[in-house]
């Protein structure tokens, strides 16, 4: 077991709005090993994006706040750091890639300037060295002719190329942990395949740990070693990727995997989960999935199931699983 880089313990993040407290993340725990890609998968508004932003403590002030739990990076609890110390971590120890390449880059500055900014900030190199560092970051992400491309403006590049620039910014200071929040959702299938392959070998070269946030099971299968399935602010199941696909225990995981149409076989009807996800304003008392779960008993409806370890690193929160 390589050593653990990030340990999240019982994280609670809420949004205080006029309609009341939205418990976006309601007590989740997981860990990420060095050099490993850990998947956070779930449908929209399940709390996966909020988890990513909570780790970087970048929640929209003043409505969003972390109300509980610990986030331990290499032994230090990020919650105890001051704003200034936390800024030292952002971009240096932990960095993040956002979903939409079209809006992630500042339209009025050249690509080179935006990468150099991180390098100058965190590595304090003299100017001539900074340029070298920027070119090596662009080359790491496989951008052709970096010497000329760094003078381009973002709008002169395609979506795929821009997402590589965002990747270069993230990797420019060789972070320990990279949070990728649906980086390929806005890209076409073949460009996505390129991007995922690129990140697999960047991980081999730099041993960076990656938290990969996505709703696409194809991406999970392709790049993640371990996965946590989230639903309405809680983690339903965490396991190795092959276990999740081959032997899932939680009814929600099973239902999700079965409702994904498969390219390698012809189904005439897809399994579909009835009903709608719960509103985060008034969450059901018991298990969040109970109202839509085919095997729900009354205990499921009024008491939250504990997280049970059912195998090596395989945990499930469901009353059915002993």
């Amino acid at each position, binding site marked *: 077991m390589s050593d653990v880089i990030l340990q999240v313990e019982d994280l609670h993040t809420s949004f205080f709005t006029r309609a009341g407290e939205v418990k976006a993340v309601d007590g989740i725990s997981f860990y990420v090993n060095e050099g490993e890609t850990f998947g956070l998968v779930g449908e929209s508004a399940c709390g996966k994006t909020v988890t990513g932003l909570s780790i970087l403590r970048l929640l929209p002030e003043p409505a969003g706040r972390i109300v509980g739990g610990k986030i331990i990076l290499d032994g230090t609890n990020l919650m105890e750091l001051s704003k200034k110390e936390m*800024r030292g971590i952002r971009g240096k120890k932990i960095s*993040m890639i*956002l979903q939409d390449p079209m*809006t*992630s880059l500042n339209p009025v500055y050249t690509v080179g300037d935006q990468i150099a*900014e991180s390098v100058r900030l965190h590595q304090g190199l003299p100017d001539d060295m900074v340029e070298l560092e920027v070119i090596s970051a662009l080359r790491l992400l496989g951008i052709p002719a970096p010497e000329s491309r760094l003078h381009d403006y973002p*709008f002169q590049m395609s979506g795929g190329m821009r997402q590589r620039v965002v990747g270069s910014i*993230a990797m420019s200071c060789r972070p320990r942990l990279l949070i990728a929040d649906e980086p390929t959702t806005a890209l076409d299938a073949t460009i996505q395949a390129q991007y995922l392959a690129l990140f697999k070998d960047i991980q081999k070269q730099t041993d960076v740990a990656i938290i990969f946030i996505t709703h696409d099971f194809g991406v999970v299968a392709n790049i993640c070693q371990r996965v946590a399935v989230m639903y309405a602010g809680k983690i339903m199941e965490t396991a190795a990727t092959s276990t999740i696909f081959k032997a899932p225990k939680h009814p929600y995981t099973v239902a999700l995997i079965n409702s994904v149409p498969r390219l390698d076989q012809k189904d005439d009807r897809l399994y579909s989960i009835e009903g709608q996800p719960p509103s985060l304003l008034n969450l059901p008392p018991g298990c969040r999935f109970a109202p839509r779960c085919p095997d729900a008993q009354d205990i499921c409806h009024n008491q939250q199931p504990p997280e049970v370890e059912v195998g090596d690193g395989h945990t499930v929160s469901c009353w059915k699983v002993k």
Partner: protein
Amino acid sequence: MTRFIIMRLLQSFIALIGISILVFVLVRASGDPTMLFRTSMSTEEDIARIRANLGLDKSMQEQYWIFLSGMFQGDLGESLTKDRPVTEMILERLPNSLKLAVSSFFISMILAFLLGVLGATRRDTFLDNGVKFLAILGQALPGFWVAIMAILVFSVYWQVLPPYGTGTPAHYVLPVVTMAFFLLPGMMRLIRSGMLDVLDSEYIKLARIKGLPERVVIWKHALRNALIAPLTAAGMIFAMLITGAVITENVFGWPGVGRLSIEALFSRDFPVIQGITIMVAAAVLLINLLVDILYAYIDPRIRYQQM
């Protein structure tokens, strides 16, 4: 870039023609144009002179042609009461107006930037609400009334500042402050809303993700993008500037073009008003052109598309 400028110049030229037609028609709208140019004491012989001056005996097109060609040679006609060319009168007063307008513009622009950006970055704090209240108040109280009250307080009670005229720097204080008070709210709102939109964007979040201190995120990343919104309103700011000038100059007896227009109104000196209107129209077109060029400079996307 040059083709873009030539094209815009052409459009401005056409617009100027349009405005000159509007003014030309307005003069003749009230039936007997000499009525406008006659004062109560003018004799029959004066009226004949006015008719000749306006060339009313010639055909409509010819009159318009004389009017137009005169306009482009800078000859905006003769003043009735002062017997001097209108252009000369305007140019004589222009420096005073400019001194007042430019100084109050810069003061309010600087203040607007500071308060607008601070207001946007520290939302709903005491400062932000204070700034917002000042903006709303500023836009609500009538400029001329504020000016008079200022005279009441600073000149009548405390006798600290002179209420009228120009000359010593002390004369500048009240007019410039009133003008700034008039311009500040509008500009501040524009900059604040421009900033708020930019601050919601993804690249600002990415800037924070990089670990940049908030000051760099605001003043380097956000501000330049937020500059674009107020720029498009430069035209409106110019209109506010002139409105402010007309009012402030009248309240404080400041001998600028604004005061001239009101004096001309009372002395029924129509050519002067006509001249001022055309000059302002030309300035408006120039401002619009400059804004477009500056716009292209700040936002590279536009610069690349135009070529």
